[in-house]
């Protein structure tokens, strides 16, 4: 049963990703991107990674897409409307895609590349924890990874103040 759901969702992810790249209208592209992101979120739910699924929907389908729509509204759409599908960057893009594909192929067929066997990867460990992996994640974040979490909060403050300082006009 799960495997059919996977194929159905994967088909949505891939087809909407292809349509996002090929569609000529910027707003259509963004809408296809939302569909792709939401479907990836569904894949995470299928893996019982509900925290990652929630982050995927909130951050990507929510925040990032709103940012994209802002940019689409700010730039003059009629000028970018007629962009060539195969623009100057097609060669480097192809090369990079090939490298990525080779890496994925290597991982899938090349004896998994000797990846470390992580028992939690199967999900069995996380599922056993009461309250699911969101709670596990929260506990880990606030105990083992407390220091990087706190440093990251200073980092975000610096990023915010830096952006405000640099974009503010002369005072």
């Amino acid at each position, binding site marked *: 049963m799960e495997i059919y759901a996977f194929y159905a969702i994967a088909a949505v992810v891939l087809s909407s990703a292809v349509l996002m790249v090929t569609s000529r209208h910027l707003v259509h592209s963004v809408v296809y991107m939302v569909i792709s992101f939401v479907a990836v979120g569904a894949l995470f739910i299928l893996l019982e990674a509900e925290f990652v699924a929630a982050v995927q929907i909130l951050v990507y389908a929510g925040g990032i897409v709103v940012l994209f729509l802002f940019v689409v509204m700010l730039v003059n759409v009629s000028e970018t409307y007629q962009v060539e599908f195969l623009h100057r960057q097609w060669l480097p893009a192809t090369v990079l895609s090939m490298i990525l594909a080779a890496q994925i192929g290597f991982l899938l067929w090349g004896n998994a*590349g000797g990846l470390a066997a992580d028992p939690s990867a199967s999900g069995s460990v996380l599922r056993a924890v009461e309250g699911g992996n969101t709670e596990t994640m929260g*506990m880990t974040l606030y105990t083992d990874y407390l*220091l*990087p979490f706190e*440093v*990251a909060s200073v*980092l975000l403050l*610096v*990023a915010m103040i830096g952006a405000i300082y640099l974009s503010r006009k002369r005072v």
Partner: protein
Amino acid sequence: MESIPFSASDLAALNAEITLTIGACIVLVWGAFAERNNNTGHRFAWITLLTVFAAMAGVTIGLPALMSNGVATAFAGQLAVDGFGSFFSALFLVAAALAIGASFRFLDDEDAHAAEYYFFMLTSLVGMMIMARAADLISLFVGLELQALSVYVLVGYLKSDRRSSEAGVKYFILGGLSSGVFVYALSLIYAITGTTNIEAIRTSLNVPGTTDNPILILGLILLVVSLAFKVAAVPFHMWAPDAYSGAPTPVSMFISVASKAAAFAMMIRLLFVAFEPMTASWTALLAVLSVATMTFGNVAAVTQDNVKRMFAYSSVAHAGYALMGIVAGTAYGVSAAMYYLFAYTFMNIGAWAMIVIFRREGMACDRVEDFNGLVHRSGWAAAAMIIFLLSLGGIPPTIGFLGKWYVFGAAVEAGYGWLAVVGAINAAISIFYYLRLVKAMFVADADSDVTLVHSMPLNVTLALSAVITILGVIWATPFIEWVQSATLPF
């Protein structure tokens, strides 16, 4: 839920970073409400200096006390409590204190906001100290980014100066790229070892057969490339001359010393602890980088007419000398590289602080001719500059000479005699362009358009740097013993 996830000793281990963060927040909030005039600017500089001194006390008194109680890590193994981290933390704090001395008057003259400037300086210090002390890749990366983001803003701080803005943008883009490469390398290493703990990575790599894994080798190569970016080693140095010459001069002096030392600290911990089982692989890579860095940095510096660009290339070359100690791959080599960075801190800050003194028609100026006839206008300044230049060139009796002696000795001892020969040839090339400044100061006539802008804090920076550059030779033993005890964990 059960209990607080950290103990008092965790907080004590982090005392300096906490002090700096609190100081940064005070400066920021006060700056938002304060009336803006010169006096408030100096007020923030004093608060920052006080914060740096408090953090220094925490590093030099608090941390050793903790270590003698047997505390080795804090925050669930995220932070190492060791002499190595304390040495580098102290180095960053000294560099910051000296750079603040050069910033007092500079910010007034450039009519720049003081509060945010000192805020970013303090947050970058927090990032650097986390970089030097992190025992886990995640903390290490977050610290690196905290340092980097703060420094990008500092480099582009003078918004009305096009060179500063351009330098900030270039540094931001290339720095972001290199951080991307760095985190990609970390992800590959995690994929193979299954851990982000630096000590545990070593254990995992000690399993026979692991080190042949092509993904791991790719990870190591990308790691060395991104670290080379961060220490500005040739051929990954292209951001450094633009960033150092475009940045406000006190920022150039700070980042060419402290950011570079932080990147070296990170490099040493990653290579000597996590990748200790693969020492033979990375020493070969770094030997090539070291030769390229020394040679290109010095040759490029010869052709510069702009003093800031000259010192920017010279600082690239100095990274090459420090790399030599790491190439040696021994604890002795690490202590040599650390001593070199210690010596470089004072002589380089002193040399950059001299550039802050010169102004032409109210504007900062940085051409070789601006040094013309300095000896007739200020004998003390000329004498200090000669001390710094001799030290940068590696001529006795200065700590620069001791530093070079130490790294060359480490290279020879590890069987890299040819590398020491290349280093000696490079030292000879570097004397050529340092002497150009000496010649300008003594032989040429002074240009009346150039004014010397002294201030008490700047003079203190110059005097302290000059005194340590000379006295560091006479009382060399305590410093060398300190460096050697700080290398003990390796």
